[in-house]
Structures are given as structure tokens and as C-alpha cells.
């Protein structure tokens, strides 16, 4: 059961009402969002709290890595930067390996979570990635 697999690292995504959402931080004082999550706002050093960053966005840039993949990822695998709709952040992310050959800048994508590669101990784990929005 995939549901029993651990996340690749804790605190990067969680289940939302309509699928997984990406987690980051929000500054309690200046309200900026951050990804990856951080404990202190780098501008005002106020404490941050965990914030949902949403699940939808568009591809800003993408590439397919064709060398021997790290972390038990598939060969080839795809990564990119995604501009998130809700918070305006541009986040580095894995992209659905099944999208190789169909990746395009501007493509609308949504977050998915599935078994993908291995964790630091070489064990299978869940990883978040962006896949194409249903047509």
C-alpha cells in the first residue's frame, strides 16, 4: 500500500480536501510565503508558521535529466520550476516522468504524490511532483 510508505522528508506536502498540497512557511509578521519551509523569516526574523502553498501552477522552466539518476529516480526524470497560482512562489519540483516529451513552458500543472525513488536510507518513499492538469 502506497499510503503506508513514508514521505521522502517530512513536512513538504499534506493531504488536502481535493488532493495533496505543498507546504511551506508564512511569516507571522510580514506575511511573506517561503518554500522550502523556514523557521525564521529571513527579512524580519519573526517566527513563521506552516502554510499551505496550494497545488496548482504553471511550468516556468523544465528539463529532463538523462544521466544516471540519483535517489532511485526513474531514468530519465524531469524537474522544473513551477509558478504557484495561490502564493506567487516559483518552486523547484519534480515533474511527472510520464510528461517527458510533452513538457512545455506555461503548461498548467497540479501537485501529485506517489511512490517515486528512494529516501536517504535507500527505502521506497513518497515524493511530490507536478503533473498535467486534466484536459
Amino acid at each position, binding site marked *: 500500500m502506497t499510503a503506508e510508505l513514508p514521505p521522502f522528508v517530512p513536512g*513538504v506536502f499534506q493531504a488536502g480536501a481535493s488532493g495533496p498540497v505543498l507546504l511551506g512557511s508564512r511569516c507571522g509578521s510580514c506575511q511573506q510565503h517561503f518554500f522550502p519551509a523556514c523557521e525564521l523569516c529571513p527579512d524580519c526574523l519573526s517566527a513563521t508558521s506552516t502554510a499551505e502553498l496550494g497545488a496548482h501552477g504553471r511550468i516556468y522552466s523544465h528539463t529532463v535529466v538523462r544521466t544516471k539518476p*540519483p*535517489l532511485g529516480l526513474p531514468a530519465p526524470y524531469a*524537474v522544473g520550476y513551477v509558478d504557484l497560482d495561490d502564493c506567487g*512562489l*516559483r518552486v*523547484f519540483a519534480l515533474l511527472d516522468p510520464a510528461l517527458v516529451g510533452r513538457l512545455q513552458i506555461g503548461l498548467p500543472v497540479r501537485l501529485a504524490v506517489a511512490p517515486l525513488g528512494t529516501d536517504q536510507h535507500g527505502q521506497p518513499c513518497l515524493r511530490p511532483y507536478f503533473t498535467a492538469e486534466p484536459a
Partner: protein
Amino acid sequence: MNDVYVIGVGMTPFRRAAREDLAGLGRIAALEALRDAGLTPAAIGGGYFANVLGPQLTGEVTAGQFVLASIGVRRVPIVNVENACSSGSTALWLAVNGIRAGEFDVALVLGAEKMSVPGLGLLRGGSEELETQLGMVMPASFALRAARYLHEFEVTPAALAQVAVKNRRHAALNPLAQFREPVTLAQVLDSPLIADPITRLQCCPTADGAAAAVLASGRVARADRRAVRVDAAVLCTGSYQNPTDLVRWETDRRGSRMAYERAGIGPEDLDVVECHDAFTIAEVLHTEALGLCGPGEGARLAVEGATALGGRIPVNVSGGLLSRGHPLGATGCAQLIEIVQQLRGAGGARQVEGARVGLAQCMGGDQSGDAKSCTVFVASR
């Protein structure tokens, strides 16, 4: 504040599987730099040793003291420096500031790397960084810039690839370069894709090698007619601002602007440039950040020959990282050495005629679509 000059340089060939170990490579370059400066070890007031992978690959720590003691540099302050690909140039920056502050009059800066080891694989950030756990590898970080660049400026992959052809042509004129056989545009484009659109011949090779420089205050350098003056030495760090613009590199631009301001010159005053062409797209973005051309025009410089030897502003006449090779800790020193040789008129077959003002730009590390470290040096005679 003391003026700072480069009065001695030395480097090993950059190549795969050098016979020498890390210390052996370092000794060769450092001794050559000392001889070039006409100094004995007793004249050295401070030492800086740049190396990246030693602690990880062979467990070396405080390697700088070990290497420098073996060529007689003892008792004085010695600092080991790691700033990824810009370790060597960061060590130079420290030495410049040590001399400017009056801490000592002469410093020896040595960058060395031994990275021809089985199974090294692609370089990545630390395992604690989330991007690493999401599959970020060095070629991908630049491929993402390249893909965005091609998209925004309607540039072809062939235009990017031309940078590799140009720098290989330069390397043919550099006896110390790793790859000296010319390559054609078709060979660059047809080499295996590493991370789309970057092909293998658009990635710099790993190498073993060492490069060293002796820096001195004006007091000491006054008698040296070959001395090259350091007009600006800038080290800055990424802002990690989000959203980041992958093709208008703010950190690169900020570092360049600071260097020009401090040197009191502009890009139009430069005769020769070495920049951190770890990948073809990197040279293109750096030439734009340095103001050698406008945004989106960088790829054209190589295509039109402006950045080739004999062109308007030759870039990476040493062959650059792409063809000279990239022993991480040594690269930043090797770049400044090339500028010093050019300004001395000792560039041999690759001499830029009448070169009087040169610039060396380097970057290291990658985080949140930004460089962790950026150095820019301006030097003149």
C-alpha cells in the same frame, strides 16, 4: 588601504587522472608561483588553500597547512577555503583583503582539486537541502536556465552550442588545457543529452589540477615590472529572492556592478574576460550580466565571433571551464592567472593583443535558483 598586486603565478596542467595526489598537485603550482614571484617561503605572510572535495573523498582536513608546510610556508596564518566552484576565487578575495588591511604584505593563494576518482557521479548540493532530495543536480540547474532562455529570447540550441566550439578553439592554444582537439557544432549538438537542452560537450569536465598566485602590497610589488594590479575584488552571495528570474541573474549583475564601481571602469573598458562557463548557457548569462551585451544577446556574441580571440571582447581565451577543465578548488585561481598572463603579454598563441584591463568572474553553489557565491575581479597593468 594597501594596493594589491599579483606578482607570481603557477599552475599544473588540468587533466583526468593526474599522477600526483592533492598535495603533490598543490606543491607544483605553489612552487612555480613562488619562483615566478622570485620569493622564498619566508617572504609569505599568509596562506590560503582552496579545495572542495578533499574532506568528502579522502577525509582530508586542514590540507592547506599540510601542503604549504611541505614547501616551507609555516608559522604564518593559513586558512582552508571552501565555496564550491568559487573556492579559489574566494581564497583570492580573502588574500586581497588581508593585504589591504595590512595584516601581511605577501600572501600565497593555492587552489587544488583531485577529483578523478571512481564513481564520483554528478555534483549535487548537500543531502540536507530539499532541492537535492527532489533530484536537483548541477547540469539540471543550468539546463533550466537554458530552457527558459531559449524560450524567452527565441534563441536556438545551436547558438548556445557555439560557445563550446569557441572555447575549444581557444583551448587548442593553451598547453595546460584538458581538451585541445577542436570540435564542430554538429559534434557538440550530437553529443549525448545530459539535461535538455544541454548536451555533454556543453558541460565542463571534471579534472585534477592546481593553480596558485602570489599577491603582494604595493610596497613589495613596486620593484616588479610585471606586477598586475587588482583593481576590484568582489565576493557576494545570492539573495534567494522568490520568484527568481533564471535568465536575468540578479546576483551575477550585482557582483558585476560592484566590481565596475570599485574599479572605476565599465564593461566597455575591458580587453579580456574569463567567466564561469561551467555550461554553455552559463557563459551566455554571464556575458549579459557583465554588460558585454544586452539581455538576450549573449548567445549571439559567440555566434558572431565577438567573444572569440580577435573579436570585440574575447571571453575564456584559456578554453574556459568547458575545455581547460574544472578542478573545482583550482578554477578561480586559474581564471585570474589567465588574466595576469594576458596583461603581462605572456598569453602566447592566445594573447589578446594590447590587453590592459581584464576581468575574472566565478560562481559557486546553487540554491533556490540562485548562486550561493559570486566573485568578480578586475585587474590591470
